[in-house]
């Protein structure tokens, strides 16, 4: 375990020194994420110009929800996103071999090797937006509830990563340079909207087999209505099952890897 921790710290150190070499890119990445936050906030601002409530939430609650999602997104962009971007390309070009021969878990190495130092700054910005949204909330949120919410947001980032990588792994069979990345990004938008706007099978799917609503929406819902341990257990169970599924899926994928480029 300590070996993996030391290795990860090396990844982080290396990423920071490299980010400083590409300063303009560092700046662009920060501005890009700010732009994303601004468009999402503007989206909800315009929507609330048309309606008083959306999925049972008023404007201030929707802002807390979406700023919670910004935290998930910033964590994902910082820790996982660069690695997810490279994974289909490595498989497609047959470059995965270099990672498979290393004396550490290939899944660990491929998922965490690139730490996006520039997006780390956006994590600070996202936290600022979250604090601003929380201060505008009509009801008071206790410290304990806030801490539990942030723990669920951390879990949401892990869940988001699990979903993302599960959509990329089919590249081992499809051999394209993208996997099902576009499908993931289309579905990931469901995580940016309140769970209660969906009904029927769609809503059930979004808290079970495609748990995008568990990333930020369900935690926000419990933050406003009071936490239920059943929700926490549900989110924990889905994440654990997702992780087990990923390990199985990754094993199957590696057995199909031919090392030939495409």
């Amino acid at each position, binding site marked *: 375990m300590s070996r993996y921790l030391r290795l990860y710290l090396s990844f982080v150190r290396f990423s920071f020194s490299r980010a400083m070499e590409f300063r303009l890119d560092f700046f*662009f*990445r920060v*501005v890009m994420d700010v732009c994303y936050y601004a468009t999402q906030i*503007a989206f909800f601002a315009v929507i609330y110009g048309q*309606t*008083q409530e959306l999925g049972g939430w008023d404007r201030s609650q929707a802002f807390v929800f979406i700023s919670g999602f910004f935290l998930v997104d910033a964590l994902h962009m910082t820790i996982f996103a660069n690695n997810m971007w490279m994974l289909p390309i490595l498989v497609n070009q047959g470059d995965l071999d270099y990672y498979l021969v290393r004396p550490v878990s290939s899944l660990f190495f491929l998922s965490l090797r690139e730490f996006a130092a520039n997006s780390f700054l956006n994590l600070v910005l996202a936290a600022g937006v979250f604090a601003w949204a929380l201060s505008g909330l009509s009801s008071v949120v206790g410290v304990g509830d806030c801490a539990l919410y942030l723990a669920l947001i951390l879990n949401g980032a892990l869940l988001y990563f699990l979903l993302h990588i599960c959509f990329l792994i089919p590249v081992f069979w499809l051999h*394209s340079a993208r996997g099902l990345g*576009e499908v993931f990004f289309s579905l990931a938008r469901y995580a940016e909207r309140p769970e209660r706007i969906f009904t029927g099978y769609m809503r059930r799917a979004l808290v079970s087999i495609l748990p995008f609503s568990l990333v930020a929406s369900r935690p926000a819902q419990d933050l406003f209505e009071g936490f239920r341990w059943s929700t926490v257990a549900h989110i924990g169970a889905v994440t654990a099952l997702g992780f087990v599924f990923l390990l199985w899926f990754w094993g199957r994928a590696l057995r199909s890897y031919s090392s030939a480029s495409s």
Partner: protein
Amino acid sequence: MRPRLFAQVLSIEARKSMSYRIDFWINSLVGILAQFVLVYSLWASIMGAGGAKDSGYSFEAIVLYYVLVILLGKLVGSGYHQGEVSSDIYDGTLSRYLLFPSSYFAFKYAQRLGSLTPVLAQVVVLGLAYLLFLPHPDDVSPTTATVAMGCTSLVVASLLFHSLSWLVQLVAFWADNVWSLVVMMLFVARLLGGSMIPLSMFPAWSQGWLVVLPFRYLYGFPADTIMGRVPTEEWLLGLAISLAWVAAIGLASSAVWRRGMLSYSGVGI
């Protein structure tokens, strides 16, 4: 660039983009369906709660609007070439194109249109699915004339998108990695172009700005035109504004290209 060469490049690119057929159809169809279900759920929830009464759209009309925006958006702003110009500059591949006896801009535009040819088939299939399976709005009256006007707007929108994307990517002459700038442009274009929300729902103070900015003419304008929501005079004005943007961006791009070529080493990374 000669039309025959343009057509050849387009044809090669169309075949190339179909080389991973399963991947292509899954990514495109599921992506479009997912987007549609999302906006359908959103507006069913808003209108079910009595919202958007003064928006000027019935529920069926807003469904049609999003069907058009999603499908036409695939033709305007998708394709696999959004980062290729900057990559060519960054890794030095541009040198190869500079030796070609044709315009690099036209070559890339032909490639872009070629990659969109299979998307056209999807747009037709899904458009027919809409006509067959979803209820049609009573308050919207598309005619042959509005469809023709919308298609014209779509052609200009495609050129405008390519020009915008081109200008942004030319920053690669001075920056190492500009994909984040392209993504940023997409975020702004989706919001201010009416892809996320119809522009008529934006606050009154912003309407003047939305008309003069180029983004409206990428998504919302062609969709509203087809729906018959844009009077002929307004359509002509819109077309003139979007063409003026194409010309202005073209002039700016030429200046940036000339400056960029002076600093281009051709070495690449």
